């Protein structure tokens, strides 16, 4: 707990990007998420922490409707992005996912070249008009994901040939290539070594200038290092949500305190 550098906790914006009210999620009979109210601010890193199976990943996957792909998953309540309900029947999840990018727990680059990995999103969304523009998007995305220097000479080689940390940065580059407004990260560092983790964390802090980032993490140190706001989930409930500094130094709920001091979880 000593390396929690709870500093520079400046929230740049108080504008709410995502507003969730009374969100309930059921997997068949299993009531996975109970009455969650969250406001996620723009240009802020929000961390979701909590023990395994507490619903934090489930909630994250609600934000870009990835839960739609799971059979028997029912989402109730309202989730609004820029005051538009994303569960409105008129919303096409495909359009939503272009706006809300996602990085997964395990690096999952397509078994294609590095270039094609990054170019895929812009291509299918028709974001570029010609090859030169596409090249530019690929370069910018790779630069922002801090992978350009390592990858610029091997854009045609397969993305699966990179190291784990590089693959994860490639996945981040792929996610930001479609210029999303929100970036969801589901335990992005759990498969990485400490050095790669540090690189990704640095990257997340930089990405904050453009996106609203939501990160699920098992590591409380990580939440403390990268986030401005933290939500603690337990057994499907949102127990506490607030400034990261406050959550880690002065938790209001006894369950939060037990968790961050290592007594439950």
């Amino acid at each position, binding site marked *: 707990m000593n390396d929690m550098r709870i500093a520079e906790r400046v929230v740049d914006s108080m504008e709410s990007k995502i507003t969730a009210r009374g969100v309930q999620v059921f997997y068949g009979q299993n009531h996975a998420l109970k009455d969650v109210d969250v406001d996620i601010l723009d240009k802020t890193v929000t961390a979701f922490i909590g023990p395994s199976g507490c619903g934090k990943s489930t909630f994250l996957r609600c934000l870009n409707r*990835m839960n739609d792909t799971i059979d028997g998953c029912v989402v109730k309540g309202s989730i609004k992005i820029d005051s538009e309900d994303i569960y409105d029947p008129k919303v096409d999840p495909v359009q939503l996912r272009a706006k809300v990018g*996602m990085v*997964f727990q395990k690096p999952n680059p397509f078994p294609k070249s590095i270039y094609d990995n990054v170019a895929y*999103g812009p291509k*299918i969304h028709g974001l570029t008009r010609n090859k030169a523009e596409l090249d530019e998007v690929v370069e910018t995305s790779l630069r922002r994901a801090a992978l350009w220097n390592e990858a610029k000479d091997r854009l045609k080689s397969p993305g699966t040939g990179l190291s784990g940390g590089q693959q994860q940065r490639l*996945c981040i580059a792929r*996610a930001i290539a479609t210029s999303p407004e929100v970036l969801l990260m589901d335990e992005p560092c759990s498969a990485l070594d400490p050095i790669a983790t540090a690189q990704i964390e640095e990257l997340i802090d930089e990405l904050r200038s453009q996106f609203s980032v939501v990160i699920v993490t098992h590591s409380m140190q990580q939440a403390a290092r990268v986030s401005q706001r933290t939500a603690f989930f337990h057994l499907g409930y949102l127990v506490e949500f607030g400034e990261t500094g406050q959550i880690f130094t002065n938790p209001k709920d006894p369950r939060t305190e037990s968790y961050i001091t290592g007594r439950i979880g």
Partner: protein
Amino acid sequence: MTDISGGPAALPVPKSRRGSLLTQDALTKRRNAAEARFKAYGAVAITLSMLALVWLLISIISVGAPAFRQTFLTMPIELPEDKLDKSGTRDPAVMAKVTTVGYAAVIQAALTKAIKEKGISTDGMTPKDIAGIVSLEAPAQLRNHVLANPDLVGQTIDFEILANGRVDGFFKGRVTMETARLDSNIKPEQLVLAERLVDAGIMAQRFNWGFITAPDASDQRPEAAGLGVAIIGSFYMMIVVLVLSLPIGVAASIYLEEFAPKNRLTDLIEVNIANLAAVPSIVFGILGLAVFINFAGLPQSAPIVGGLVLTLMTLPRIIIPARAALKSVPPSIRDAALGVGASRLQSVFHHVLPLAAPGILTGMIIGLAQALGETAPLLLIGMVAFVRDYPSAPMQGFFDPASALPVQVFNWTVRGDPGFVERASGAIIVLLIFLLIMNAVAIILRRRFERRW
């Protein structure tokens, strides 16, 4: 973490564990012996199956290989105008009035002349016996050749004709002087004459292209029988099967695996597909007879009907491996595609299908290979018929009568003349070569496109 009360209870240490590590205890010995026994069973099983395979191959090849060689007579044949084209018009339509009987006389004359010129003694054999060493097919061979080139009439040409099947069998060791004495179809004197003709250079064995290209022949002339019609028929059927079952099978498996909701109905469909793969193929033959021939009115013995029946039979056998291949693509790839905003269809066609392609193609080729070797359903839709005429080019050819390789094998094994036993084994070799090529392609595809993720 805090609910563990008291220290762990001391477990009693069994006596056997107290021995030295350098000596095996009784339990370890028993386990090692069981493992050794199991390995021995496996080795025995593998050896037995390898022996069976080798024995099968040796017997087929030793019986079938001679089918690829054939005895021919080559000699100058005079084509007299007064017998073959009395009108002198060289019009094939008019010349066609001369039947094979007329050509048989021409061949007999030519053979008698050739024997006389070479000074070969015939030991007082009748002209009919001498002509008996020539195949019954030979006059037809010569007639077709002359009708195709009418200008040859009046000339003397060097022509190659088939020797009789028994004579051919004599050189392959199937017929001996002893069997010839008991055989009403051949006399020992004829075999002696054949040996002399070989010495004189008139008769010789060579590679028999006719076995691969010629159509089937009647019971009395195994020497002329070939696989031409059967190979074309099988090829046409495979085209029909490929064209129908690849898109239908792949589309069905993609739908079932990626799009269909998981409910009672899809469960039922799934079970039924698995069951259909196990339905005896002859059942599909009856179905084809009822639906395609009796109801839809398609012609009998036609490759289109055979192809349709085999498609029905092959579809479940393609869908099952195709679904397995799609299922084996890790879900993380689908998540990745959906995560960047691809639609379900895009994620399937851009990412999942290319990764599943080697598995799908392998299943496809193995399904096709099974269809190629299938006999029973084809018997029921009339593909067992005796077909001498080559089917025409596609598309008309799909509706022409044809045979198929496995049916030809079946057909020949039923016939009486021992020459057909050799032909049947030869046809099996051809069939096996095709299957081997298809399986090799499947392996190459799998190796080439296999990707790690």
